[in-house]
């Protein structure tokens, strides 16, 4: 009989002032259970000040096949990057 609990992704804020970061996943029946398990599995050594859990099935991700065009540095659009470059592309 398979009645596997749903999968949750776990995000932890390690220190004041930092973003929550993905640390791993776990199985739990509901959100409350997922939070409790996350505490035991991922913060046994005070690694976190705050935990987020999200059902893995609710996360929308870009598909890897899109990665090329979507994330390739766009050479024509240098202005969003913090270093100012001249037209030759040298900083």
């Amino acid at each position: 009989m398979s009645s596997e609990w749903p999968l949750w992704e776990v995000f932890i804020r390690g220190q004041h002032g930092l973003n929550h970061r993905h640390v791993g996943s776990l199985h739990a029946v509901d959100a409350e259970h997922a939070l409790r398990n996350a505490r035991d599995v991922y913060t046994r050594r005070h690694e976190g000040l705050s935990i987020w859990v999200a059902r893995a099935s609710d996360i929308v991700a870009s598909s890897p096949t899109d990665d090329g065009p979507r994330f390739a540095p766009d050479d024509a659009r240098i202005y969003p990057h913090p270093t100012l470059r001249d037209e030759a592309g040298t900083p």
Partner: protein
Amino acid sequence: MYAQLVKTSRAKAPEEMSEQERAFQARIDRGEKIEPKEWMPEEYRRTLIRQIGQHAHSEIVGQLPEGNWITRAPTLQRKAILLAKVQDEAGHGLYLYCAAETLGISRDELIAMLHSGKMKYSSIFNYPTLTWADIGAVGWLVDGAAIMNQVPLQRCSYGPYARAMVRICKEESFHQRQGYDLISKMARGTPEQKAMAQDALNRFWYPSLMMFGPSDKESVHSAQSMAWRIKINTNDELRQKFVDQTVPQAHYLGLTVPDDKLAWNEDKRAYDFSEPDWEEFYAVVRGDGPCNRDRLGARVKAWEDGAWFRDGLAAHAAKTRGAKMAAE
């Protein structure tokens, strides 16, 4: 190692590869990490499932020999340390199961394969922990050997596995230290305690050497795994490193390594040592070690005894969800 017998074929030569395979290998050669949803050769995926699965199962079954002593730890402090250590091992198993699941296998399938004997766990956990000194030997030698293997795997090519290894390695050094501390207290204790420490070393030395898997001469097909960077060092390289690190520690403790061939070799700047009994190793892997039936029996029993609880939690969650929906 924790995955002792993961065989792959010989490494494919570039001209035998498809375009896609060549691009994949080039990414690995550049040191890029492979992530779950990206294209990978089927054999890479299957090998990793076996390797990470065996590794996860080893962490989980590895709780049993130590769990055996939690209620009998000699002091409250030792008991607290051992509890924390065993809890860590459960955590390691969970990190690794999750990493394996990113490759498209479910937790239930993994557990079913462990319970049916289709998937293995490390041979080392089929040896009994007969005395309290064995708990020291396990931390010192078994966790020590595990670290040798896991540190390089932090740089392996599969992202989720590498990241799980980073977390695990942070915790392993505590495991090894508490074991060394425990056995050093006994080695410097009463003559009876020292004898227990020596006896533990005698029994755990060769099984620890077996943890690295068969000798490189024994046709271990790991060339493909090394090309894919899911295996970083050969079995013999790691075994040598382990011996070179551990022998001086044993000397320092005044304990004798049970090997009359053990000698420092100035030319290779490393120790010469006897290989373990490989017949025994294969017997243990086949299921005929001293504790195989016990260990697997305990795992299956824990899983079956917990079924009512898992079902209860799931039923409660479904009921609460239903009530919430009705209220909306």
